[in-house]
């Protein structure tokens, strides 16, 4: 299991109720279910991936986060997880609001556009950056709203959303983000993980 999921799993206590938005093939769901006795649900837009979740015995609903989160009642989950998909929505702000309405807390991870390799790519090559976490060309990328770790921190603060934990990830390297090291982490992390609450 990838490092990102290990960090997310550590943020969630035993026996909680969790919704994984964009749960893909259910890797994280299965881990949480088997290891932390989590009552886990998934929402996934791809039919193929929904089938993979069903084959793992996971409860998953085929659907679109922008349209289908509305059906869940307020605070009906302890945690709502959104892994590396915020940037792909037409209206990320609306999705964040929905996550925080449906979940008591939300865990959001973002590919960091401020990562030094991305900056260097744009600086030296002058073309849209392509990396391991962002492998698509500008014309076929699903990512509509890329942001940096710093952008995301500024955004949640401006919306009076509480940040409980911010974690920077660079391959195997996991570290905390705070106000003083934000600039550095924004340069050296390729992924940011945030535990937030409204």
């Amino acid at each position, binding site marked *: 299991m990838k490092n990102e999921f290990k960090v997310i799993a550590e943020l969630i206590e035993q026996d909680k109720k969790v919704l994984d938005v964009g749960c893909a093939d259910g890797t994280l769901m299965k881990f949480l279910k088997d290891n932390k006795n989590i009552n886990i649900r998934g929402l996934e837009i791809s*039919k193929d991936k929904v089938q993979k979740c*069903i084959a793992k015995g996971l409860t998953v609903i085929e659907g679109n986060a922008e349209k289908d989160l509305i*059906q869940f*009642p307020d605070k009906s989950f302890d945690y709502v997880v959104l892994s590396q998909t915020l940037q792909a929505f037409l209206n990320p702000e609306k999705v964040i609001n929905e996550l925080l309405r449906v979940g008591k807390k939300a865990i959001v991870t973002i590919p960091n556009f401020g990562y030094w390799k991305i900056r260097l790519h744009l600086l030296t090559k002058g073309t849209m950056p392509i990396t391991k976490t962002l492998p698509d060309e500008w014309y076929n990328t699903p990512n509509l709203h890329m942001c940096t770790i710093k952008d995301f921190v500024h955004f949640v603060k401006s919306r009076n959303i509480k940040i409980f934990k911010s974690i920077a990830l660079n391959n195997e390297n996991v570290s905390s983000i705070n106000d003083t090291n934000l600039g550095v982490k924004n340069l050296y992390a390729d992924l940011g993980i945030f535990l937030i609450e409204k």
Partner: protein
Amino acid sequence: MNTEKNIKTLLVKKPLKLDCGKTINNFPIAYETYGSLNEKKDNAILVFHALTGDQFVTGLNPITNKDGWWSYAVGPNKSIDTNKYFVICSNVIGGCLGSFGPSHKDPETQKVFGTNFPVITINDMVNAQYNLIEHFGIDKLFSIVGGSMGGMQVLQFISNFPDKAKTVIPIACTSSHSAQNIAFNELGRQAIAADSNWNEGNYNSKDTIPDKGLAVARMAAHITYLSKKGLQEKFGRKLQEREDLKFGFDADFQIESYLRYQGSVFVDRFDANSYLYITRAMDYFDLSKQFNGNLSDAFKETRAKFFIISFTSDWLYPTQENKDIVIALNAIGADVGFVEIESDKGHDSFLLDVPDFLSALKNFLDKSYIEN
């Protein structure tokens, strides 16, 4: 049809109060079972059939000598694996394959009921079938499964008996018959009524059944079970055993010939009055109305695990209507999964060889059974 010898029946002695106000008792329910009930009696699956189905889910149907209606999904090693599970299916009341219906004799008058048979509902159907669970001494079914009208029965059953099933699988169905659904059923009923042989439901000899009306009803309904794309790909404008148009009203096109054939084989196995009664039961089905407009309330007593399946090209019970059930379940935090299967085969997809559907059904059941 002399079918008696191939039909197992349970005579229900307990009176059943119907939604119409009448009470029936000492009535037969015709059923069939597949596989075997284990010692713990925790491997039973109750399958509900659709409008024109019957208790012969799989294997050879001894009445029609054709494969059972859900042979793709039910059988040894299939999605509903009869090596593992004990499958029970019964003919709905109002039906014509052994269960109490309009072709039976009224015990009081000794005359065939015809349209004197009481109007029955989906609720009446499942309440009648509940007797089978008691008959087999099953405390809790492992699953209840059905497509189309079978799915409606699934929803009604878990609403009536919230702790009697562990898993619940309504397929290609709705919680409330739409105006379009009612319209198509009414078309079928009016086709039967327009056949002079129907005679207000009093037809007794085989020579005078309203076969033309019933065939037209079946033809119209059959179109609703297929998709436009499916029809176009299978038939297009292909001509039936001729080089060119004949400038007449015989079946020039293959689609005409196909529908006529579907109509003609249907009348051999189905009773026109049963068709009226069962379509009426579907039209009356409105589960949210039973709960003052709040569909969620229909499910709030159950802890069962739901799995809802729809098909992309089903315009009779479209995905949105299936999703409305998902939404109602999510609103109360129920355990519900949902998948829309890609298929060009229309509403009939659930009866056909649609691999993604069959594997989803199998995976859901088998994984849930392990966790059982």
